[in-house]
């Protein structure tokens, strides 16, 4: 590693990062862009979280206390749009930007200027989207799924919704192109594809999914736009169109989208568990094949979101079987992570705690997903709180916990200082307890017959709703602790971190100093000593 170390010393410091706002507005450095994505996603997470608190406050008891039904629908719609497109996806892109070049021994992303645009489009897109809250008719209120004809009843916000979705899509597509080109072209020569770390693999697969489906969403929302303003009838039955066709097109995007949101999480957990179990990832190649199978299968299951729409029997049977099949490669991954833990020598620092909670709770989300796949019972679960429970389990203790695990894991590398471990653990325990208090009762509510997207409910649903609301408030407040820990670490208040930070972690990122220098791997490193991957 000596040539890499010497090169790290060699960065032309007399250029260094630009000073002031220019450093950020004109950023082409993958570390700076990664930081911006992560800060942006944290802010969006808090904004989306506030909306969730409005929702849960109203739902705490029967009767309408705080908001009108129209505004409640705006909150549920915006909460989802912000969390999906503003919090989860940008966070994973931020992690990709920071870590992929370092993990493959590359000096930066392949297309640094496009990288800049990928990021800066997002604040514009979300300003547009959030500004609709102040418009005549309010923000979009038809659900993040934007089904017509209902979405065409949106007021002035409608074109802004479409435009901001387009902008977010462009950002994601450009980011995905960058990831693919970087991974395929800039790996250090010793690093063959199967030697890549799992985080890089899962991002390679995710990037292909993004390129495949974001244009489909763009097509769908453009058709909404033309139906509204240019006299087309893609989705209007009176003109010969079909509202259900929108659902097909949307979910053809939507299902791979949820795998886009979980595959990088799988990658993160595959990095963290081996480090803290002090044991190599079990079945590395198998994990690659499993992730690829999941990605492939994700294209042929979309209509499981539409089982009540009036689909022919054959269609229902096909989508039921294909959806059940996804449980197989997903199970393989869960077993491989468990086998990684097995006969390791585990310690439980905060990144490991979040990864273990991911393992348990994402698996629970997987079980409710399997139940949802079975059509006759799905007839009862569909559009009820059972679905809300399912997707929050896979997204919150799934994606979000993986993001937090990654942040705790790599923060010392980014800042050069340890975060406060005691507060990190406290954040972990509070989050884990409250996430379960919030979302577990929702399984019962759905089974008992409570539909989703309603601002008020019949009194027999009251008990579990008050529990869920208390959990939500607790979970929301706990995230302030996370903000505090991250900010304190960024201010370099903790102990200094070594380049390895943890106990002999594998991966090229641990061969550079902490904080990682502004430019790393100006010369490609060798990976001969096997330290490149877990």
């Amino acid at each position, binding site marked *: 590693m000596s040539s890499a170390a010497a090169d790290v010393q060699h960065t032309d410091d007399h250029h260094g990062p630009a000073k002031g706002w220019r450093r950020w507005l004109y950023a082409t450095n993958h570390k700076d862009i990664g930081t911006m994505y992560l800060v942006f996603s944290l802010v969006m997470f808090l904004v989306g979280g506030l909306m969730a608190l409005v929702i849960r406050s109203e739902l705490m008891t*029967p009767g*309408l206390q705080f*908001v009108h*039904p129209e505004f409640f*629908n705006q909150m549920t719609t915006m909460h989802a749009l912000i969390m999906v497109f503003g919090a989860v996806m940008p966070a994973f892109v931020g992690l990709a930007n920071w870590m992929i070049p370092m993990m493959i021994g590359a000096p930066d992303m392949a297309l640094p200027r496009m990288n800049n645009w990928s990021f800066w489009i997002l604040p514009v897109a979300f300003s547009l989207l959030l500004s609709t809250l102040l418009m005549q008719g309010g923000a979009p*209120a038809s659900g993040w799924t934007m*089904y017509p*004809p*209902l979405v065409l*009843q949106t007021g002035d916000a409608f074109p802004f919704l479409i435009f901001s979705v387009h902008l977010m899509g462009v950002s994601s597509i450009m980011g995905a192109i960058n990831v693919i080109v970087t991974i395929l072209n800039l790996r250090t020569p010793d690093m063959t594809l199967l030697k890549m770390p799992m985080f890089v693999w899962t991002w390679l697969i995710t990037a292909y999914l993004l390129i495949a489906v974001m244009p489909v969403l763009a097509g769908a929302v453009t058709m909404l736009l033309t139906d509204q303003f240019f006299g087309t009838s893609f989705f209007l*039955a*009176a003109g010969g169109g079909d509202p259900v066709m929108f659902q097909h097109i949307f979910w053809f995007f939507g299902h791979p989208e949820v795998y886009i949101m979980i595959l990088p999480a799988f990658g993160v957990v595959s990095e963290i568990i081996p480090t803290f179990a002090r*044991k*190599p990832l*079990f*079945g*590395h190649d*198998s994990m690659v094949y499993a992730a690829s199978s999941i990605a492939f299968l994700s294209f042929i299951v979309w209509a499981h979101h539409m089982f009540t729409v*009036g689909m022919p*029997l054959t269609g*229902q*049977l096909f989508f*039921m079987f294909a959806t*059940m*099949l996804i*449980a*197989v490669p997903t199970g*393989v991954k869960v077993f491989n992570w468990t086998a990684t*833990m*097995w*006969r*390791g*020598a*585990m*310690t*439980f620092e905060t990144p490991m705690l979040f990864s*273990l909670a991911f*393992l348990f709770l994402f698996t*629970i989300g997987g*079980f409710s997903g399997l*139940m949802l796949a*079975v059509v*006759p*019972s799905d*007839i*009862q679960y569909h*559009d*009820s709180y059972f679905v809300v429970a399912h997707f929050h389990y896979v997204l919150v203790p799934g994606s979000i916990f993986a993001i937090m695990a990654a942040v705790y894991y790599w923060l010392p590398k980014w800042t050069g200082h340890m975060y406060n471990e005691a507060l990190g653990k406290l954040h972990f325990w509070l989050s884990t307890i409250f996430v379960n208090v919030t979302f577990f009762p929702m399984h*019962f509510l759905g*089974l*008992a*017959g409570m*539909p*989703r*997207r309603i*601002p*008020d409910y*019949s*009194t027999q649903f009251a*008990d579990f709703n008050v529990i869920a609301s208390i959990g939500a408030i607790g979970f929301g407040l706990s995230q302030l602790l996370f903000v505090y820990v991250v900010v304190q670490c960024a201010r370099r208040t903790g102990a200094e971190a070594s380049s390895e930070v943890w106990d002999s972690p594998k991966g090229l990122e641990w061969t550079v100093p902490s904080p990682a220098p502004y430019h790393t791997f100006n010369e490609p490193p060798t990976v001969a000593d096997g330290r490149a991957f877990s």
Partner: protein
Amino acid sequence: MIRKLSLGVFGLLAATGAGAEWALNMPRGVTELSAETYELHMMVFYWCCAIAAVVFGAMIYSLIRHRKSAGANPAKFSHSMTAEVIWTVIPIIILLVMAVPAAETLIRLEDSRKPDLTIVVTAYQWKWHYEYQGQDLSFYSTLSRTSGDARRKGSGIDPFTVDNYLLDVDRPLVVPQGAKVRLLLTSSDVVHSWWVPDFAIKKDAIPGFVNETWFRPQETGVFRGQCAELCGMDHGYMPIVVEVVEQGAFQAWLAGEKEDAARFAAAN
């Protein structure tokens, strides 16, 4: 607290759950297919519990025994083709075991041939319209007055004092016990969905299209449901109430309704 909770779990897991607080499970319902749906749901659930016991059991065991603080030395193994094959094949077999009854129930669900009664259901923002096909009887069904008054923001009326709050209508759908009732669903505006948990049916009402579903209620009683597709402002305020009555009572009701309708038409 834990004891109370687990007693509650065991007690209520078996309960029908409809209308009960702290309901933990789906209702068994009052049709043959709702019972089949319930059994299928429980079967998949039990499989999930079994798999969870094994997988979480292994994880918890590992968390306790394989920790550095307990003096564990990390092993070096990193792969096993045998393990991969086993834990791919066994889940596939389990899925096949689940898929067979699931497919059978689904095929039965979709068989709407030879109905005894057909009702055309049209969804509106925000109420339902029912037309008894061939009977010259149709009416709207909207949220009841008591619920409608209480639901307003700051109404000052405690929902707990309202009977069947948000689940009550002015004119319920009435159907005869034991009859195969076919529903033809459509919408006049946006997508809605007709859902009654006790019948285990839910079908979208889509403008410009006609969807079909059916149920054969085996018991008399009043069964309640709600719209299950976001349809705008009052999506939560367009419930469904179905009264299942004995055959004789149904004929009497039908005659009475048609007489009322005729008298109303004559007077206007």
